[in-house]
């Protein structure tokens, strides 16, 4: 059974349909990429899965439980963490406070400390800047903080929205290396990216989204060699 199972999901913004019946699944241990152009509905999918946006119809199941109507603040305790588009770290709080908010639903202080150490292992920069205000960090550091904050909840499924946005190619590679590490440690990853080449390079499977519908799906390898994909998303003639 799939870890995350989305069936015929429809979402409207006002009268405008944003998702026109989306179905996909994420199996345990996979890295799944959702790729597509700006405005295709990628972010809306993640927002609907974590309860920030309400679905008109369709179902979302996480580990066999229907979470379609579960509000956002109850999702993280179920084992799903969302790294939102634009990082959305808490700018007036320190790096450490931000990370601790990531573990807001967890009670055991010793376990939290252990997770904090492992987050610092992934992102030594965050340890150096622990006492700094998050708003003063660079874009790359904020992305690391947003990821670290999500990992503080020890998620089974990590949802990542445009981690490469606004970052230099070197930082993008660094972030994607860490996503691979996190995946190797057993966390399932659902990745939304405009940078299709990068996303497909680390994904197992991918779904291609066009104006609210999934138009293509397959293993990352197949999609990388698909001519239409190469033209539309990989910038090749």
């Amino acid at each position, binding site marked *: 059974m799939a870890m995350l199972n989305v069936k015929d999901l429809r979402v409207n913004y006002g009268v405008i349909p944003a998702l026109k019946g989306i179905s996909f699944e994420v199996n345990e241990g996979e890295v799944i990429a959702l790729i597509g152009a700006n405005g295709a509905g990628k972010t809306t999918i993640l927002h609907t899965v*974590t*309860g*920030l946006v309400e679905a008109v119809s369709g179902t979302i199941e996480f580990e066999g439980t229907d979470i379609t109507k579960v*509000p*956002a*603040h*109850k*999702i*993280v*305790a179920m084992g799903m*963490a*969302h790294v*939102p588009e634009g990082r*959305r*770290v*808490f*700018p*007036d*709080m320190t790096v450490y*406070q931000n990370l*601790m*908010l*990531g573990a*807001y*639903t967890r009670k055991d202080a010793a376990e939290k400390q252990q997770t904090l150490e492992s987050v610092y292992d992934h992102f030594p920069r965050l340890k150096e800047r622990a006492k700094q205000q998050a708003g003063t960090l660079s874009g790359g550091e904020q992305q690391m903080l947003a990821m670290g*904050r999500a990992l503080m*909840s020890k998620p089974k499924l990590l949802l990542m929205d445009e981690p490469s946005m606004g970052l230099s190619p070197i930082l993008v590679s660094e972030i994607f290396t860490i996503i691979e590490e996190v995946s190797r440690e057993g966390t399932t990853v659902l990745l939304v990216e405009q940078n299709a080449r990068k996303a497909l390079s680390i994904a197992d499977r991918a779904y291609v989204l066009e104006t609210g519908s999934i138009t293509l799906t397959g293993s990352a390898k197949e999609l990388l060699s698909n001519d239409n994909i190469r033209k539309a998303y990989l910038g090749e003639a």
Partner: protein
Amino acid sequence: MVSFINYLINGLSLGSIYAIIAIGYTMVYGIAKMLNFAHGDVIMVGAYIAFSVITTAHLPVACGVLAAIFGCMLIGICIEKIAYKPLRHAGSSLAVLITAIGVSYFLQNVALLIFSSNPKMFTPIIPMTMMTIQFGVFRVQTISLVSITVSIVLVLLLQLFINKTRPGQAMLACAQDRGAASLMGISVNGTISLTFAIGSAMAGIAGVLLCSAYPTLSPYTGAMPGIKAFVAAVFGGIGSIPGAMIGGLLLGVIEIMGKTYISSQLSDAIVFAVLIIVLLVRPTGLLGKKVQEKV
């Protein structure tokens, strides 16, 4: 000189009451992103609760103070749940603002219905024999010292609560980004309720202090201090708790000094003139953050 220092203490005392009210305003604004214009009337409700318990029911002062605090807390939570929460997703801050004005009139009229428009003499919480304290050449009203001390203690406790506790961190997170806060597992509705509870409890305390210093209590008692405290919150930088504290104290001092040395009729005009000048120079208030956009 002696009288100047006495006026200064009176100003700080009135200012500390404004500060306690202003902190409630500023917290609600920071977290719920709304101006709760009924906040001033919660002060009046608190004072009437204390009046009923102490003067009418002849119970000890402590009971009256506690009843005012918890009564206001409950009323604050109910106001938010019944009047403001249904409008939270309406997308119009104007609707909430008008509702808040409506709640303000509602509270005043309920008080009018129960207690009539005749002012009541509030029994000060300080016993008659201890009304003033003599420090050498200074004779200070005890309630002034109590007000100043209470406001300092409240601000320190609040800072501790916000920076060191889990619900406090949740409040900070909601103030900065509600969506991201809910992704952390924080219940935004719960946090807003908590904010109203704390702000209203402080309004209850302010009501008791205010009516102990100025003992006539009417259904309109809270209106003017409410507006002054709003001014204090804007003055200090709305959303900032230390700003509300400083704004409140300054406002109290300016008001009393203006009354004493310039004109007692013009004192309110002076207070608002100072606000306008401060806002012209620093549009975000004394401690308000500059709005910066990151590209």
